[in-house]
């Protein structure tokens, strides 16, 4: 009997997958039943998003810092100060607490991060205002990381 049920499960999953098509914005209602069968994955230290490999931070690149500062000022400062909590957490020293890939994924994929990444989930619960997706490119997010990492908090100067 078991041997009958498993092919059926497979059929169901195939159907689910086949139905999905319809572009990137197709909501995931069809996929929900799949969660029943998916074991909870271990949290990925890199977070969840387009950045799937560790980002190596080398020498500070001043050009990248300048680009990052411009993007940060336009896109992030409404909610983030470097030295103090604002709408979101203070960001000075964030790269001592989290890796660069995680920070980039938080910038690039905040909707999923606050739902699925345990650290981001906890931060959302604390701050309540959702991390806005400002639609940065991956390069812009990397530049923002460069800007934040080289920033030295005022009390340490």
């Amino acid at each position, binding site marked *: 009997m078991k041997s009958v049920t498993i092919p059926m499960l497979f059929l*169901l999953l195939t159907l689910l997958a086949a139905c999905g098509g319809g572009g990137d914005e197709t909501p*995931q209602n069809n996929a929900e039943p799949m969660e029943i069968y998916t074991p909870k994955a271990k949290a990925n230290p890199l977070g969840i998003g387009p950045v799937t490999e560790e980002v190596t931070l080398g020498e500070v690149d001043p050009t990248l810092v300048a680009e990052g500062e411009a993007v940060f000022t336009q896109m992030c400062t409404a909610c983030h100060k470097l030295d103090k909590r604002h709408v979101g957490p203070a960001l000075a020293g964030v790269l001592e607490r989290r890796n660069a890939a995680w920070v980039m994924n938080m910038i690039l994929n905040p909707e999923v991060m606050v739902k699925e990444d345990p650290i981001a989930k906890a931060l959302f619960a604390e701050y309540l205002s959702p991390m806005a997706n*400002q639609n940065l490119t991956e390069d812009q997010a990397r530049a923002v990381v460069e800007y934040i990492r080289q920033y030295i908090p005022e009390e340490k100067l």
Partner: protein
Amino acid sequence: MKELLKLCLLLPAVALLTSCGGDGNPNKATQGAFNTNDAAAAVYVAPGEYDEYYEFFSGGFSGQVSVVGLPSGRLFRRIPVFSVDPEKGYGFDEESKAMLNTTHGFIPWDDAHHPKLSQTNGEIDGRWLFINGNNTPRIARIDLTTFETAEIIEIPNSAGNHSSPYLTMNTEYVVAGTRFSIPIPQKDVPIETYKENFQGMLSFISVAPEDGDMDIAFQILVPGFDYDLASSGKGPSHGWTFFTTYNTEKGRTMKEATASQNDKDFIAAINWKKAEEYIAAGNFEEWDSEYTNNIVDEGSHIASSETKHKVKVLNSSNCPGMIYFLPTPKSPHGVDVNPTGEYIVGCGKLSADLTVHSFSKMMAAIEAESYETIIDGIPVLKYEEVVTGVVKSGGLGPLHTEFDGDGNAYTSFFISSEVVKWNVGTWEVIDRVPSYYSIGHLSIPGGGSMKPSRKYLISMNKITKDRYLPTGPELAHSAQLYDITGDKMRLLLDFPTDGEPHYAQGCLAELIKPNSKKFYKLDENTHPYAVMSEEDVRVERDGKNVHVYMSSIRSHFAPDNIEGVKVGDRVYWHVTNLEQDWDTPHGFAMMGARNAETLIMPGLTKTLVWEPKVEGVFPFYCTDFCSALHQEMQGYVRVSAAGSDVPLKWSLGED
């Protein structure tokens, strides 16, 4: 137990299979796309799934357009066009007010009739939607990437702008005609001099292929009949536009009787390529005619109005070969050219029958110069030489015809309240279904183009009565959705509509959905009062005008504490939404502002004016629920006495 589990797994699988729907080629279906008799399943769009078609309904006297999904009948959006819309701030905020300017001044309303989608090579291309304002003659163009009105042009020398905005197969022109003849140009004359002094005007409005920019290319002065509806040729008849006329009697009072005397009125066939030749040859008069052209700037999103002063006018009586009249029985209302471009169907609204003229027969009659008579220089062709078929319907009061691309036509019958399906070629009636009640327009997605989509037909009805839960004396208008894939039409769904739709046009969602804009890029915002970040926010005084350069993001305004405003000031709230994500608008409302809120899409700047009348401290807040801290998205402005010396001061987050 295991059997039960199996069943549980199979059931959703079957449901998924049916909900997957979307058969590749609906035009091929002859047996009906829906194997089930369950109409509910046929219109069911599962949660999270998309409708197959967009359908754009005009709002009639609401002045707006509504965007509906098919087959579900769900309303997605109401697009403000000719009427103000306090929900969005349209016509209230400083950016959009100019859209409603006319030579008569600011007009916050019109009667929006016929939505027409732009075409390329006779097929709907998903770029723009045009619609006419019937009352104060105007044509609007809606951009289908933003679903916003991008341009409105006023039509001079016109009245009762009803035979509009029917477009040609490459959107070379949208046409606009006068349902009501008037003295042209306007002058003070006794109404009883109608026959001597009143005329009609047919306008051809060019559409720039790159950006859709409209301009009045030329106007054609025609006899003082009522030009009711229009349809442009396609394929072999490309280059011609057909207008129905009634009131060839030239009645001016009690028209329901006086305009119904003649056994036949006309379909006016306009050879617009010939008209272009006359224009090129300089055979036109240049008239001083004022009209307003309002257009939204793409970068700043600010609408501006330009008053134009000249039009080129062709007089039909001295442009041979440009216009012919095709006698057509009984005050024809709709005129519709079939997808091949050969047949011109006139619906004599006081008749039981439909008249089908043949384009090739018309051309032969013109070639032979076989005229019944000539009216004001316009040859009237002989009825029997142009007519090719009469549909003996058995119904009463035919109004409009749509085609399915498989050789079938569908005509609405107002008086007998039904849709009649007939064969194009044999002219035989194939099927009929009742509508509830008194159908006006009907629509097949892709209708009016060379490639209609044979799947659904919608009837738009004038009378609702008992269809829905009663809502007092005023009722929503009703629409019905029919499955037309089989030999027999089948009623699937009944749904209320917004305002009074006069036609709706639809197309496959895939033509529009991929181009739908999600947000405006902040660094492309060229609004002079925009701020690019919170670093730029400030308040500036210029005499009695106070400009607040403000930003919004979830969930605060910057600045949110403002002092130094005085009674008698005129405060401009320029709010830039700094969000850069889909579906993150913020609203802005100011206590005591005598206009509306404004709703600011991500990346845009909108301006609301407020003139404080009394001293005090007044709140402003975000109206569009934006986050868990939306209730906190609020600020204060202090208003001091007119002569006070409270300095201008602004802040955010300072204690």
